[in-house]
Structures are given as C-alpha cells and as structure tokens.
C-alpha cells in the first residue's frame, strides 16, 4: 500500500464521518422541526337520550293520629280528598304502610298515555279531639334527596316523618336531623329500609326530643323516596292545627315562597299565648347545611303592590335558625330569600279564626321557566274553604296564562287569583314565575305548590 493509497483511504473515511455527521444534524433538525400529520379518529361519544319513563307522583295519604285507648296504633284519622289530573293516568295504592288504614296513592302516567303531564293534590279537613285543621299537599315525585323544613317536637307538637317508596326497588334511607344546636346524633337514623311499595312512618320525637326547630335531610339509595312531614299542634287541650310539609329537593342560594298568607295573626297570637310556646308567630326557618355561615337577605312583598320589608341577617352554618317575622301585617306575602351559601328554608304561618287555629308550612317552589306549561291540580276543598292561586314574578314582568286566561304579573309583585277547587289547571308563563295555591277558611289554612315540570331526560354521553 503506497502512501497515496493510505492518504486516500484516510480521506475517504474522514469524508464518510463528516457526511454522517451532516446527515445526523439534518435528521435531528427534521425531527425537531418537521411537521408531521396529526391523525386521530373521531373521539366523540354517542349522546343517547334515555327513554321517557312513566311519571309517578305520590300522595302521602290522610292525617295521622294515635287513637285513644290502651294500645294506641298509629292510624289515619281522616282520609284525604284527592284530585288527580292528566289523561290516561293510573292510580294505585301503595300496598303497605306503618299506619292503619293508610292508603298512600301513586298516581302514574304510563309512557304510552296520551297526556304528557300528571298532577295530583289532596287535602284533608280533620276535626277530632286531638286533631283540628286543614292539611293539603301536592303529590310529588319520589326523589333520592329531600329536605324537610318544618315540624317541632315540643310539648303538644307531634311530627311524623312519612317515607313512601312507590317504586320496585327497596330503598335504604339515611336521615340527618338538625336542630337549633346543630346536627343531632341519634340512633336509628341510618340504614332505614323502605321496601318497595311500602310506607314507613317514624316519629320525629324518637330522634329529636323536645326540638323546636328541626330540619331533616333524607337521602335514599336504591329506590327513591317521597318524603313528607306531618305536624299537628295541640295547645293546652285544644287541637290547634295540622300541616303537611312537602320536601325541598336541595339547598340553594335563592329560594322563593310565592305565598305566605298571614291570616288572622293577631287572633292567633292571642289564642296561642296559653301554652307558653311562642310558635304562633310567622317565622322563617333556615338551615345552612354547609360549613360556612351565610349572609341572608329576606325580601317580603305584599300582594297589593305595597312596599315590602327587607331583612338581612346571618345564618350560622349547621344550626337551624327560626327567624320570626314580627310586625308582618295580614296579607298575602311573597318571600324571596337570597343567601351567600346554599341553604334550605320554609315559612310557618298560623292562621287564626273564630273556630280555632291552624298552621301551615310554606315551602319554596321551583321557578316555572319561560315557555313552560305546567299542569297542576287544585285539591278538593271542604265547605267554607276557598282556593287561591298565588303568582309571583321575582325578576321581571310576566304574562301568565291560566287555562287560557292571561294575567300580567308585574315584576316583584305577587298576584292572587280566586280559583275553583277540585280542578286541574294549566299554567304557562313567558318569564320566570313562581306559583302556589292556598286554601283558607275560618281558622283553616293549607297550601299546595305548583311545581315546575320535571326536567326532560338529559342525554347521556356513552363511549362504547
């Protein structure tokens, strides 16, 4: 091998290495900078709307009482009168109940029924030695959560928790009960089995002893529950009112009670002073179930368009506050509660009359949205009791249509209309509207809510 050949070979190798290095740099640049196609298949899932299910509302049944005797059994003291509306509905009795003669009714609108809405309401006029007054409640859907704001277990006050499972699946219910001093610890509040097609009735006094301001949260797993409270009051020896408390679905930062009728309040206060328990005052009961205190603004609006009242207060977290509404003159009031934290609220009013007293818990209603039409039922009312529809538009002027009749509801005012009892009413609105029905007679007071229609089934996104 000559020197020339050696040099040639070395040059060749060096050139090769240099070319390799250049190629490597170029490759690196390509990897760092070159655009590559982005290929990806469509990842969207299938949005499937579940089939519309049969709509069922549950009517809790008559007014409960313990008959006098050696071995008192919880019994229905007075069967209710019920009005169900909706074409093609089917009424069925929930077969089992803790109370004798109790016949809670599930009103079902099958999927193939001609109508799309169903509603029912019932009312009970009771007058026995222990019970007196008018109780009414709209029949509501069974839900997984319910907040029952109302009741009392002080002397002379009896409160029953009524849990009705109209479905086909057993429900396991957990109760949480708050009182003035916070969450109450009590045995037997969790794991309550409500078998399918049964009604369980529990005395609140077993959980909260001598509690003036209970609030009960009902959580069910498995099946859904229609939960109610029934409160009856005996002042001294006089039965002084019954009320049915319907559930709120969840805590919220805004609640609207379209009707808080104050009727004969002076009379009531006078008659109620006897037993030393000051629960005849019109009162708002509030609970913030969270961990943070809430600032609350309560706006009271009279039906006649007069100036209302605004109350601001602070509700401590986890303890029930009964806010007395002193100086509230008689009239039909609409109440708006705005809070910084989600809370639950209900208003209690005691109606006084010549023949006695009656109490009623007024629970906030959901808002009827623009364009929605709702079917509601005005419960049958016994003689001497008239029914009124209360409409309240908190945000703006709303034209409501009641059975084809147009009614203007000015913003921030409530409108009260006389209505026939024992009818079905179709109510539509072109704005946000809250509505309820009140029934009043001499010393009798009850109310039912007009609830917004159930939400249309939401589509579920599935990635199969």
């Amino acid at each position, binding site marked *: 091998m000559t020197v020339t050949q050696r040099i040639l070979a070395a040059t060749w190798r060096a050139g090769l290495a240099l070319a390799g290095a250049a190629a490597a740099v170029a490759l690196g640049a390509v990897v760092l900078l070159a655009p590559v196609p982005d*290929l990806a298949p469509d990842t969207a899932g299938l949005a499937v709307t*579940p089939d519309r299910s049969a709509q069922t509302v549950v009517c809790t049944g008559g007014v409960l009482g313990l008959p006098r005797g050696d071995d008192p059994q919880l019994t229905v003291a007075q069967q209710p009168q019920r009005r169900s509306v909706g074409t093609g509905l089917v009424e069925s009795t929930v077969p089992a109940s803790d109370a004798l003669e109790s016949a809670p009714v599930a009103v079902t609108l099958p999927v193939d029924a001609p109508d799309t809405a169903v509603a029912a309401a019932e009312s009970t006029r009771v007058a026995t030695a222990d019970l007196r007054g008018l109780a009414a409640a709209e029949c509501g859907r069974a839900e997984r959560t319910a907040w029952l704001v109302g009741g009392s277990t002080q002397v002379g006050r009896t409160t029953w928790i009524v849990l009705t499972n109209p479905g086909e*699946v057993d429900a396991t219910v957990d109760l949480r009960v708050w009182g003035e001093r916070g969450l109450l610890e009590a045995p037997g509040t969790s794991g309550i089995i409500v078998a399918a097609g049964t009604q369980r009735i529990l005395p609140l006094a077993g959980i909260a002893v001598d509690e003036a301001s209970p609030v009960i949260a009902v959580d069910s797993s498995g099946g859904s529950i229609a939960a109610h409270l029934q409160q009856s009051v005996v002042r001294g020896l006089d039965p002084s009112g019954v009320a049915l408390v319907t559930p709120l679905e969840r805590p919220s930062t805004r609640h609207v009670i379209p009707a808080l009728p104050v009727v004969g309040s002076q009379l009531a206060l006078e008659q109620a002073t006897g037993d030393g328990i000051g629960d005849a005052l019109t009162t708002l009961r509030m609970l913030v179930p969270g961990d943070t205190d809430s600032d609350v603004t309560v706006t009271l609006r009279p039906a006649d368009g007069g100036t209302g009242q605004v109350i601001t207060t602070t509700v401590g977290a986890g303890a029930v506050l009964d806010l007395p509404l002193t100086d509230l003159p008689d009239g039909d009031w609409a109440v708006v509660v705005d809070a910084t934290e989600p809370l639950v609220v209900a208003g209690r009013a005691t109606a006084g009359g010549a023949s006695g007293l009656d109490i009623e818990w007024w629970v906030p209603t959901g808002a009827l949205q623009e364009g929605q039409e709702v079917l509601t039922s005005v419960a049958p009312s016994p003689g001497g009791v008239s029914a009124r529809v209360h409409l309240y538009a908190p945000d703006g002027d709303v034209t409501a249509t009641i059975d084809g009749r147009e009614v203007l509801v000015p913003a921030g005012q409530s409108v009260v209309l006389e209505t026939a009892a024992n009818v079905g009413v179709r109510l539509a609105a072109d704005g946000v509207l809250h509505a309820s029905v009140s029934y009043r007679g001499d010393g009798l007071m009850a109310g039912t809510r007009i609830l917004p229609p159930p939400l249309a089934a939401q589509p579920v996104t*599935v*990635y*199969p």
Partner: protein
Amino acid sequence: MQPRVTAVLIARRGGEPLQQTLDALTEQSRHPDHLVVVDAAGDDEVTAALASIAPTQFVTAGAALGFGELVDRAVAALPAPEQTSSPYGGVEEWLWLLRHDTTPDSRTLERLLAAVEIAPSVAAAGPKQMDADHPTMIAEFGETMTAYGAGIALAERELDQAQHDRTSDVLAVGEAGMLVRRSTWHDVEGFDPALPHVDASLDLGVRIRLAGHRIVVVPHARVFVHESTPLFARNGTPPSLPARVEARWRRRAQLHRRLVYAPLPAVPLHWLSLLPLALLRSILHLLRKRPTLVIGEFVAALAVAFSGTAVSSARSRLSRSRKVGWAAIEPLRMPRDEVRRRRAIAQDALLSAREDDRPPRPDFLPGGGLIVAVLALLGAIAASPLFGAPALLGGALAPLAPDLATLWGGLTATEDAAADPFAFVLALLGTLTPWQPSLSLVVLWIAAVPLAGLSAWWAAASLVRRAGPAAVAAWLWALSPTLLVSLAEGRVAAVVAHLALPSLVASAARAPRSWSAAAVAGLSAAIVTAAAPTLVPALLLAWVAWMVLHPRRIGRLLTLIVPAAALWTPLVIDQVLRGTPLGLLADPGLPSATGEQTRVGLLLGWPDLRLVLEPLTALLPAGTPPIVALLVVAALVTVLPVLALLGLALRRGRRGLVPLGLAAAGLLTALAVSGMALVTVGGTAVGLDVAPALGLYWLGLTLAAVVGLDGLRRGAAYPGLLAVLGGTAVVLPVLGALLLGTAAVAPSPDRTLPALVAAEAGDDPAQGTLVLTPVSGAGDAAQAGLAARIDRGAGLTLIEQRTMLTTRSLLGSGLPGTSGEGDLAAVVGSGGAEAATLAAIAEREQLAELVANLAAAGGRDVTETLDALGVRFVLLAPPSGITGDDAAVLAASSSAALDATAQLEPVGDTSVGRLWRVAAADSAADSAADDARAGFAPERPGAGAILVTQLGILTLTLLLAIPTSLRPRRPRSDSVLDEPAPTFEADDEFESEFGADPSGAPTGGRS
C-alpha cells in the same frame, strides 16, 4: 475367443472435453473395432468433430433422451452379433460406453480387455474415473448400495494413492468408460429407461449380478471425466446442476429402484410409504438446513408413485434376466458402519470449511456471561415488587388468559375479526407457564433486562471483534430508555419487540450465508412485526435494501418474510376488505393512553420524557429552568452519537453504516407515528406507541457506537466507560420507579373483575359484565360520559384483544387510508366495508342505548337487551385517570340510577368499582345462559384450517431455525497472536473500502 470391441461415444456437447476424448480414442493402444457415435448435441461443430474421426456408425438423436436410451440407439444401429460355429469359439463382442467428457487413458481399453479376458465370468468392467481437472483425484471408482438401497460410490473425490487398487469385484461401475459384454447387455435388456439421469449403471450392475455374472473394476485403466453422471444428463453449455435437482434425481432413482427390487408383496407397502417418508425426510432436510431439497423430495415421491408402467416393466425386465438370488448382492452392499464413517468424515469436512468461512467473534464467556448475570440481578431487583404476583396490570397489560385452552383458542379467527399476529407471540409466551399463562408475563417482566442484554450481545458480537464493545452494547441496550419505559408503563408489545429486535438484526446479517440464520431472522421478524406493526414499513425497506445488497442470495432472503406473512395475512385481508388498511398499524394489546410525545423526547430516545424529567426536576434546586433538566439528560447520552459518527472515521468503520441507517429509519418512523392515533378509549384517542420505533433508533445508535469503540482499540476504555455510566445514570429514575412500585405496572390477581364475577365465570366463561367507567372525555368538545364495554368471563385478557375490534373507530372516520369520508354515505356500496361499518355502528348504538337507559333513570325495560348481550353483571368503575368534577358527578348519578334499576341487584363495592348483578328472571334463566354463550363471537368457518396452516409454516421455520450442527470452533479473536499482520490488514481494508468486496456486507460477512 476373440474379443471385438464396439466403442459407443455419446456426445451431448462439444468443446475441449470432446476434442480430448476424440483424440484419446485415436491414440488407444488397442483400437476399438467399431466406433459408433451418437450425436445428441444438435450442433454442426460437434457433428463435424465427430465425423472427423470416421466412425463406423453415425447416429443422430434428440437431446432430450437419457444416456441409456442413447446407448440403445447406438446398439440398435450395430449389425446383429455374428453367430459363429467356430470350434475355437466365437467372436465375443464388447461394448465400450463413452461420453463426450470421458477421456480415456491411452491404454484404458487394452487394460480393460485384459481384465475381462482372463475371467470369463466377468460381464462388465469399469475403469478408475479420475477427475479431469485434478488428474490425481479419483472422481469415482465402483458403485454400490447402502442397506436402504441408496446408490453410493465406493470411492469418490479421494486423492489416488493406490489405496483402492486391490479392489476387484464390485456391485456396479459407473457408466463412463464401462466395458460390457454385448450378449449380457442384451440379456439384461440394457439400461432402465426410467432412470435417465442417475443410478442407471448401478441398476444395470445389479441386474448383471443377478444374471449370474461378475463386475469388476480395473484400477489401472483410467478415464478422466470432466462432468459427473448427473451433470452429463443436463443440456446447455456449460451445463449447470443445482444441488436440489441432483438430490431430486437421486431420490427418484432410489425410490424407483426400491419398488423394482422389492419382493412383490412388499411393493404396495413401499408405495404407501412414499409420501409419509417424503414428509419425514423433508423435516430432516429442514433440520439439516437444506430447505431447497424439500420440494424435490415430494416431486420425486409423486413421480415414482405415479410413474405408470415404469415400475412394472422394470420389474419384468429384472425377473426375465435374473438367474441367482438376491443373496448374491448382499456381500457387495456397503456395510452400515462404513456409511456412518463416511458421513462423519463429510460432516468434519463441512465443519472445517465453515470454520474458515467464519468471521472472528468475541467469546460470550466470561465477559458476556458476567454482564448478563449482573443485568439479571439488576432486573430482578428492579422488578422485585412484582415477585409472587400471578399477573400484571397497568398500561397495556392485563392477565394473559385464564388457561391454556383459552390461550390457544384466542388464535382462531372469529366471525368479525382475525387474530392479531401478536396473539401467536402471547400464546407461545403463555405456554411457558402452562399451569397459569398470565404468570409468564411476570416472568417476562423480571427477565426482560437480562434477555435484552443477551440479545444485544449476540447482535453486537457479529459486528465487533472484542468482548468489551459487545459488553457495552449489551449493557446499553438492556438499560435503554425505551425498554425501561416500556416496562414501567406496561407496554407489553414494545417489550417483546425490544427483546426480538437485536436477534432480528443479528440473524438478518447472517441470513445470506446460512439457512438457519435466515429462519431465525424470519421468526424474529414475525415477532417484531407482530409486536410492533409500526416498524413494518422500516423493516420492509431494510429487507428490500438487503436483497439489493445481496442479489445472489435473493432467493434465501425472500423467505425472510414467510413467517411474518403467515401471521399477518388473515388480518391484512380482513382490514383491507373492511376498508381500514390503516388499522394494520394499530398496536396490539390493551389500548392504553400514553404520555404525550415531545420532539426532544424522540431525539433523546425517550417514549415518555416525563419519567425522567420529573424526578430530575425534583432533584434540581427549585426555580431551575426546565431546559436544564433536559440538557442534563441530553449530556448523559451524547457520547453515543459521537462514538457512532467517530466510528465512521476509523478503520473498518463502514460496519457502522447499516446500524446508523437502521437508527435513522427508527427515528423517522417514531416521528411519523408520533402524531398518529388509531384507537379511541373512553373518548380519548390513543396514540400509536413510539417505543418500538425508538427502540430501533436506539439499537442502531448503540451498535454504531460500539463499532466506534471497537475501532478505537486500546483507547476504547474511557469512552466505553463514559457511555455505560451516562446510559445508566439517565435511566436511574425509571429503575427507581419500578423498584418503588410507583410505575404504572403493578401486580394484580389473575382477573380484572371482582372475585364474585370471576367465580361465576368458572361456570359460564361467556358471561358478560358491563363495565362502565366515567370519563371526562377529551378534545375541544370534552363531554363527560361513560366509557362502556362488555368483558367476558373473569375480565379482560390480552389474548382476546384484537386490533380488528379496537380499530373499529376508524370505520367511517374519514381518516386517510380508511374508506369512510366522515359519514356513512361514503362507505355505502363498498361491499364489506359497508356491512362492517353498519354492523359496528349498530352494535355501538345498541350498547350506548343500553348504557344510557341504565345510567339514567329511564323508562325502558332493559332485561331483553341485557339478555341478548349476555350481560350478567354491571360494574361501575371509579372515574379513570385524571378526570374532572363532572365525571365524579356522573359517577354518582349513574350509581344512583343503577341502584334504582329493578333488574339490577346491588352486590356492593369491590376493589375495582361498584358491582350489580343482573337479576335473572326465573323462566328466562336457561335461555339467558344460552344467549350468553352466543355473546362470544362465533368462530369463522375454515378458521381452524387457516390456523393449522399458519402453525405449520411456523413449525417448519422453527425446524429450519433450530441449530443442529455442531458450533464451529472459533479462534479467539482477541488474542494478540491472531491479529493479522498490519500490512495485510491495511490491504484488506483498502480493498474493502473501495468496493473490491462484492458482498459489501459491513458485518464483515463474505457471502
């Protein structure tokens, strides 16, 4: 008696041998009395040359005739033998058979005649055939048969040292220069026309012996042969004879003679044994690395089996002339011991030839063994959290299969999907632990690091000459980021590809020289492509390039694709017919989302750079810019590319070119697939795994770097140490993650569903479990939803995963390479694609409707759908991965809705989610079980036959791959004594670099 000799000269072609033969004929000390020439060349020059010696008879014949028939023509042209009544005895006529290429010695005829004259019992005599090219070598001297009837030469290709000169009586002599008595020739009716190529003279000899005559060899009569007997039978100038053709001829001749010589009752048995024997011998051929002979084996068997009257006429010819029993043959057969001895000698010769051919390689022991042992220890420590686990979960991992039957059952094509090629790899893997197939994955995880080291050692050893660089390659590959990330993230296919890649590279490098290596390369390619479909384009390119570089071995290299093709064909057909050929690239195994690939990560060889950057950032002081961590990682591995490029500038550096080419192909493949996703899981597109492509990149880089180290010789110690330390340091975070159990891969029971479901699956393996997983969804229109799938039996298994099913999201997706353009309209009318798309959409919709009605309170009675799908359980898994609040809300609402469904009985919370059991309606219980069984996709008709074919091809390749010959002894290449002298090496290098080496194989291989 006066002998009269008729020389018969058969000429197929002219040229120098013919001329020599003609000259030799004229120079005979005893001239033949007659000369008959047969001109079978059809060439004027040959005719002229033949005519120039003035033959007695001139016969022209067609070139297609065999030697025996040509001789028959010549004999027919002779006048009839003279009948004489002379009291001194008649004239004894002899035939002297010559070919154009057999040049007799000047005294050959004289000596042959002398031998036959003194022994009247001798009917034929043969000269000693010498090799014309090496006149001192015996080409052939006498023929005989083995115990099994195979023809064999008594002496063949031996240096003539008079060692055979005392041989006299033989069974037969070769046709070249044979002297045979004409009357005997007529008595035995000449050559058998059914033996046109080989063994004709052996058959003739047998018949002459059986006719009661003797045959002798005459050592002092010599004939120089230019061509062998089978070569003579070929046409063309010069004739060529592939080994496979000669082997076919010999086998055919042997089988024909077997049927002819056998006693009549044994003939049917022999006939029946023809094909089975061919099969057995084919397997033997494969084991002995002679796959080219396989076809000839069957052709020969079939040709003999259906040869018409050839056998019967040969049998009657034999029986007409036979006078003595077969015992006359026996002493002349070659004893078995002798046959065995000869075979051993041939084997030795082959072995020593191979030793000379072999490039120097470093010894595995002790250095390589030590490295692998250390790696085994390291791998065992890193995988110690997995010890004792019956199966693994995480990433693409799942239990392999509940039992062996299911494992192998997973290979058959079902109605809607062919099995993945990777299923074959899994089946093989699972068979290693037949009592619990899933355990094999645990073993694989523990043994992956040392196995990778072993594999890389093998690949590097064929490139380098010293043990040190090979050890560096083994270490770097076993601890490469791609392997460890794949182990940590449970990318099982990438791990398998990682182990098989070096053996593919190493065996493909040797494939042009060895059938065994070609078979190993074929199997490795099948494994690599099955595990890493994304590598297929790069490997195809490399394959074509390799064939271009070795055009002479193209036949052998073409076979590399056979095992891979056997595995892939059903899937390719299915995907193409369905209109989703792009789906072929989809990774096998459980689809699992991988981390986002960064371009820098690709360049640094990391499929998931987070695994190293996150621990590193934690180590660095807070506030360090992220680029610093990146630079640290880069700095630790910079030595590899530097060494690889430096290697090119060193002597013998050209060996680094192919690895560098592979590295570039790997990197570009990784780049191309980094943006591709073909599969969606729960609303998230799962990107293709770049780990195998990066593995190819890293392997090429490592091999090129060790070539550079090898070139540095004594100076390699420090750079080598630097590479090892840097490469080890950079992967420490991943090793740590494996050891601490923070990696995605984790031990699991041998099922993915709750124990209750698994227990019930024991009775009904087809029972379905609807598994719902709340997910947040991905992309712009992220929509929380439920990922739904139906698992059969005890849960997901790897063997039941099919890319045909996972890539159904491609149907109508509008991606290039799929037939849909975004909506169904595009696939309407396109045959299989339309049907498949419609079926897939219908199935998706059915499942979606079921899920929506279960997960939200709906009015539908789902009992029927649940029954139809064979669903017996519903499992609501916890929200997967990083999911938002809406997924948690959805989980809660779904749970409530499922609770409220009357058809479902809550079972309770399990380790994998909340479980419900489908309440079986009493009357429907039996039919539900039947329907559940129908829930399994039925087997496709003919799937069994396809599977058997596939397994057959694999088995044959495996037979070919099994090393059966002794490993050649190798000189120690790292000893100083064996180093070639520098002057010669320089020459060698100069030559090889300037292209004098035709093979161009940088591996140092000489084809």
